[in-house]
């Protein structure tokens, strides 16, 4: 219903437009286009998958740690995959590992981490009312949900889920005769991943568009919080690499269902010589890892971005080397596309290429080193407040160092010969990805929970959760390094068949117990999360006394975030403990001209430029008045 565009104009006339439209349950919680609600949808869904992924890991760890254990009590859930004498089926073990990997990497850390915080924080921190296209955002979530539904279904089909490892290398994944999981389970995996890719691309397009086009006045690229830089670069990585996985999957689909020979060649299986000829299994590996490696940085960069924010805030100190951090992330972004074949050193790779990739792989360690040292320097001479988010951020740095350094071993192609596909690799990526990135996710939840739900999480429970998890994770994954150096191969259902591998049964038992306890600790977090959502202490508007824009919105921001004008930005996001300033933080929205006592010399110069911003603002107001009259 059109309202009259009357010729008269008065200050109070806008009151007619201020009333909110009445949202029903469907449009507010289900088919919402509000980026905040979509972010929460991603988070809750991610948590669901985290529990599933965690439970899967516990099951196969039971098998690994206690090979003689009677798993009959799992039969009600797992059905025929538990044999009558209580043993786990070897194929189902592989399926568990495969689904555990896929779920954790894609559903939890990609969708749950990037999906949650990109959606939630980008408009809030850059000063936009919403994403460029709310509809695309909504579509992004529902494609992800659909993908999850399909993947969930695949867990329960008769022939079992995909079980060729999370990398699903052909021919194993292409041929149903090779293993039962490569039948319907693999098909569902591919369909789910297709929808997941669609979801990620839609989201990524939206994030990039929003960051570039919808920043508020004054929010230049050099005033963006590192969180946003991280999300922005993550989206770019995703945009460029997910289509490649799509291509790989497409060709795999053709091989599986239409009889082409992209990846298949010279195969005699199940008593039959297949007609496929001229294919190259290594081709798939190239295409997969062209995504696979950037994917690990899709997982890590948001976590590093979140950590930058939290460490600076809770150190009450500006992040050290803001520009260097950005350049580091840009370096990681670029380099992440040129190191993919370090996963393929022993796949028959051309030796020359191996040398190139080794060289480039170790270069990527340099920007990462810069980030680590910058974090440490941010902590140095800070005034550290240990909020749960801060603890998890420190934990992240620790895991990143531990895991990253083991990457140095793996990046060295000569050393990788021995270590490839051993538990050393498992330990490496669990420390950087399973732990560092996961801690980033937790840190983000603890830090932005007050903004998401308007309430505070219980800090004491957070501390308990952190210490149990931090210690627990090290107890789980650190021993794996020793296991890997001893040459234990990964994806082994049982190690008792080999002489060289059956010496660490007690350590495996130790790891499994630690894993169970670690997972149990997450239940504290889950309780804290859901209980605080409803009964937590009501949060103040800026509980961590942070400088960034999201804390200038109301406690429960409506769709559109700021009820009135979007605040303009005048300074970078890390003005903590400025010499001469009254408070130990100055929000981005405070003009430099308003704080002459704390301005640095170069900032005094910028006060002049600031007048231009203000003048521009004034000009817009006058111009708009002229249009009205």
């Amino acid at each position, binding site marked *: 219903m059109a309202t009259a565009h009357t010729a008269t104009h008065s200050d109070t006339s806008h009151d007619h437009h201020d009333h909110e439209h009445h949202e029903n349950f469907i449009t507010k919680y289900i088919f919402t286009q509000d980026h905040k609600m979509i972010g929460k949808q991603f988070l809750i869904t991610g948590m669901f998958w985290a529990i599933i992924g965690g439970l899967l890991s516990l099951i196969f760890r039971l098998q690994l740690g206690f090979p003689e254990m009677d798993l009959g009590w799992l039969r009600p859930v797992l059905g025929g995959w538990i044999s009558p004498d209580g043993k786990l089926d070897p194929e189902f073990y592989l399926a568990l590992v495969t689904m555990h990997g896929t779920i954790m990497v894609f559903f939890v850390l990609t969708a749950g981490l990037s999906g949650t915080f990109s959606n939630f924080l980008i408009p809030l921190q850059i000063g936009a009312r919403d994403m460029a296209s709310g509809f695309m955002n909504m579509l992004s979530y529902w494609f992800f949900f659909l993908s999850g539904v399909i993947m969930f279904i695949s867990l329960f089909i008769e022939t079992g889920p995909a079980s060729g490892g999370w990398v699903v290398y052909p021919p194993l994944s292409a041929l149903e005769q090779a293993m039962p999981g490569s039948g319907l389970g693999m098909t569902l995996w591919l369909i789910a991943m297709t929808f997941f890719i669609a979801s990620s691309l839609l989201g990524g397009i939206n994030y990039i568009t929003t960051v570039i086009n919808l920043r508020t006045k004054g929010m230049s690229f050099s005033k963006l919080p590192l969180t946003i830089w991280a999300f922005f670069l993550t989206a770019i990585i995703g*945009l460029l690499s997910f289509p490649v996985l799509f291509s790989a999957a497409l060709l795999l689909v053709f091989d599986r269902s239409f009889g082409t020979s992209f990846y298949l060649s010279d195969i005699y299986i199940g008593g039959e010589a297949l007609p496929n000829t001229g294919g190259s299994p290594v081709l798939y590996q190239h295409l997969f890892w062209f995504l696979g490696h950037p994917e690990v940085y899709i997982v890590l960069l948001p976590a590093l971005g979140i950590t930058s924010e939290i460490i600076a805030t809770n150190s009450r100190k500006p992040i050290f080397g803001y520009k260097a951090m950005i350049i580091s992330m840009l370096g990681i972004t670029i380099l992440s596309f040129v190191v993919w074949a370090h996963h393929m050193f022993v796949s028959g790779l051309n030796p020359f290429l191996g040398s190139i990739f080794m060289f480039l792989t170790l270069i990527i360690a340099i920007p990462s080193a810069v980030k680590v040292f910058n974090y440490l320097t941010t902590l140095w001479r800070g005034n550290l407040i240990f909020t749960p988010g801060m603890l998890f951020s420190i934990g992240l740095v620790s895991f990143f160092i531990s895991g990253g350094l083991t990457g140095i071993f793996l990046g060295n192609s000569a050393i990788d010969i021995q270590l490839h596909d051993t538990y050393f690799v498992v330990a490496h990526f669990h420390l950087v990805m399973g732990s560092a990135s996961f801690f980033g996710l937790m840190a983000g939840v603890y830090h932005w929970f007050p903004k998401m739900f308007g309430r505070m999480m219980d800090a004491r429970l957070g501390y308990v959760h952190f210490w149990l998890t931090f210690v627990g994770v090290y107890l789980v994954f650190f021993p794996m390094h020793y296991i890997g150096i001893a040459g234990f191969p990964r994806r082994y259902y049982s190690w008792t068949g080999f002489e060289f591998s059956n010496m660490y049964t007690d350590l495996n038992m130790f790891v499994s117990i630690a894993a169970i306890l670690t997972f149990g600790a997450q239940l504290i977090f889950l309780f804290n999360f859901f209980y605080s959502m409803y009964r937590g202490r009501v949060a103040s508007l800026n509980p961590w006394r942070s400088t960034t824009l999201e804390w200038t919105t109301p406690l429960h921001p409506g769709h559109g975030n700021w009820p009135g004008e979007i605040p303009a930005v005048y300074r970078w996001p890390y003005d903590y403990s400025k010499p001469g300033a009254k408070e130990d933080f100055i929000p981005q929205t405070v003009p430099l001209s308003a704080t002459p006592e704390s301005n640095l010399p170069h900032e005094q110069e910028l006060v002049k430029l600031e007048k231009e911003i203000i003048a521009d603002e004034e000009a817009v107001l006058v111009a708009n008045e002229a249009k009205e009259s």
Partner: protein
Amino acid sequence: MEEKISYIEGAEQPIAMHPKKFALWLFIVTVVMIFASLTSAYIVRQSEGNWLEFDLPEIFWYNSAIILLSSITLHWAYMSAKKDDLAKVRSGMILTSILGVIFLVGQWYSWGALVDRDVFFVGNPAGSFLYVFTGLHALHLISGVIFLIIVLISSFRFQVHSKNMDSMEMCVTYWHFLGGLWLYLFMFLLLNH
């Protein structure tokens, strides 16, 4: 002192591009990556040997001409829209749609021609890749034709005019991209035989 100034800049002007169009460009980037990875895979496989050599169907030549022509007619429609000449807009868009459909039909017949030359989807990857390239491109072109029709319908409802060029511009961009993509693919195949 220099390095201290460098990390804070003055008021940066926003990028002068419509967010929706920018998003379309990003989408184009993803399509580029899909085709780039497939053409890279093609090169790798070809270099590994065991490769079937055959000639490309002649229909591809005619199809290339049609696609180019459709870009011209669409651009003519675009220019007309800028001048509020709605009659020409509709003519141009209808022509472009027809040419697009002709192109698709031509691609279908080119598959027939390939089969006649014993180049099948199944079998040697040389043939398989050809089908994948043309098939995937055709799928994207179908979406392009759909977009054309949407904009055409909009023009009948007087929603396309010089003050409202967004959808038209996006359509033009996308169609030109698809045309250029085909020319690239065709040249690529031509040069790799």
